[in-house]
């Protein structure tokens, strides 16, 4: 068992009213597992990652990392958050540099990781010269360079175009199976979740809680266009519908409701092992 999250909550004081981002969060993540957290906007998904990364502290409960001495989990952001003044190589070496790794070793590790994400020939480019997908691969290489036990990914492909996203789904599955890292991935894209996850964790809208966990037993590598995958995605979406509606009703004018005429194949539940 890699990560144990018990009774974690987190509140923000936004202006006059206090917002509960996370409430009574309980989750156990196995070593090498690929967890995808799905939920409507504002369900505290990003907060959860920030808490696991140690960038924020929970208001209650605790997060225990197995082998915490291997360094903290590394977070990958939606906008890649590469340092614009450094080259791609410089970015990948950043974590090693602040750890005092000697230059020759740094260069070697960075080259290895850039090869892994297939960006070696862009090592000397500046981040702004890269496309969105390339930036995300550079960010993944930068994270892998410090060899973290856990990778945290906060909607990393949300800003990419559809083709780049499909490619990144393949690349991420390959990188995951090559490195054996534990990954916690946050998205609001249900198909993306089912494509990548061992287990999909569904969150409720404000306050964020776990609604259900759905195990995905499809062979890998998976593709988003796969029919079985689409069926499971429907199931996940059904679970989510109520939550999406709750959020949207807060944001739309009154009288709006989620379209009730959707049709999905019955019996899709057979493919999913609900917990």
């Amino acid at each position: 068992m890699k990560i144990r999250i018990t009774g974690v909550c987190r509140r923000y004081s936004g202006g006059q009213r206090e917002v509960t981002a996370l409430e009574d969060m309980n989750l156990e993540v196995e070593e090498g597992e690929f967890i995808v957290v799905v939920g409507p906007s504002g369900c505290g998904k990003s907060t959860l990652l920030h808490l696991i990364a140690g960038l924020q502290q929970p208001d209650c409960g605790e997060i225990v990392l197995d082998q915490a001495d291997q360094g903290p989990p590394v977070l990958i952001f939606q906008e890649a958050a590469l340092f614009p003044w450094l080259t791609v190589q410089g970015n990948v070496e950043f974590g090693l540099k602040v750890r005092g790794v000697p230059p020759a070793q740094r260069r070697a590790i960075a080259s290895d990781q850039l090869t892994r994400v297939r960006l070696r020939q862009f090592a000397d480019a500046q981040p702004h010269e890269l496309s969105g997908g390339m930036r995300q691969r550079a960010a993944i290489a930068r994270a892998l360079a410090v060899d973290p036990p856990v990778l945290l990914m906060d909607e990393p492909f949300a800003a990419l175009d559809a083709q780049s996203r499909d490619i990144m789904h393949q690349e991420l599955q390959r990188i995951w199976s090559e490195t054996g890292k534990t990954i916690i991935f946050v998205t609001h894209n249900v198909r993306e979740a089912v494509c990548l996850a061992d287990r999909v964790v569904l969150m409720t809208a404000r306050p964020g809680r776990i609604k259900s966990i759905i195990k995905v037993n499809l062979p890998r590598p998976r593709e988003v266009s796969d029919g079985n995958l689409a069926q499971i995605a429907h199931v996940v979406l059904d679970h989510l519908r109520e939550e999406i509606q709750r959020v949207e009703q807060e944001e739309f004018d009154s009288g709006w409701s989620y379209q009730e005429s959707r049709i999905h194949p019955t019996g899709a539940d057979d493919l999913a092992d609900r917990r």
Partner: protein
Amino acid sequence: MLTIWQIVVSLHLWSPLLLPGPKSVAQSLVDGVRNLSLPVAVLASLVRMVIGYGLAVLIGLCAGFAMARFDLLRDTLGGAAVGLQTLPSICWLPLALLWFGLNEKAIIFVVVMGATFSIITAVDGGIRNVSPQLIEAGRNLGARGLALQFRVVLPAALPTIVTGLKLGWSFAWRSLMAGELLYSEKGLGRVLTLGRDLGDMAQVLAAMIVILIIGLAVNRLVFGPLENLLARRWGLVRD
């Protein structure tokens, strides 16, 4: 420009004593260089600039950093900095003369006062506008404390800081000229005063041209390329 100048002079609207033509100004420039009075004045002014501006940069960076870190400082010192920035720095001269006496220190103090506040404001603003995500990324990858400040915050804020330094330079240059005009034994401002006292308008105009050229040269040759380099590397513009 030169042609218009020559035409205006040729119209004899003003006496040539008050508005000399380009030729006599050029002659005055050449004479000034020949008898070394101009180079000596330029050197004297530049030495003051280097000291005054150097001090301003040092104070500005430290105070700006401190202000960005501590809200209390920003609320107190920050307001004062913005307020004092609107005060023309030459207004400090009477005070400086009383504090330091009739010497170099007084003029350098005026220069420092002219440049510091715009640098403080730029450093503070630059640091506060650094994307929180870059700081989080830096922390997350293991950079803490000073390493975080020097490897993430400072480079991220650098483009804004350089803009502040450039602004500070022109403020410092203006303050220096004002200071030298009012009180100084040497320097370009002194050349101006001397020209006026002697009724030598060619010398006055020659000095003005030199002052303009130095101001422009530093902007064009130092800050211009620096800003371009930063903009290109930081990806702020596409070339």
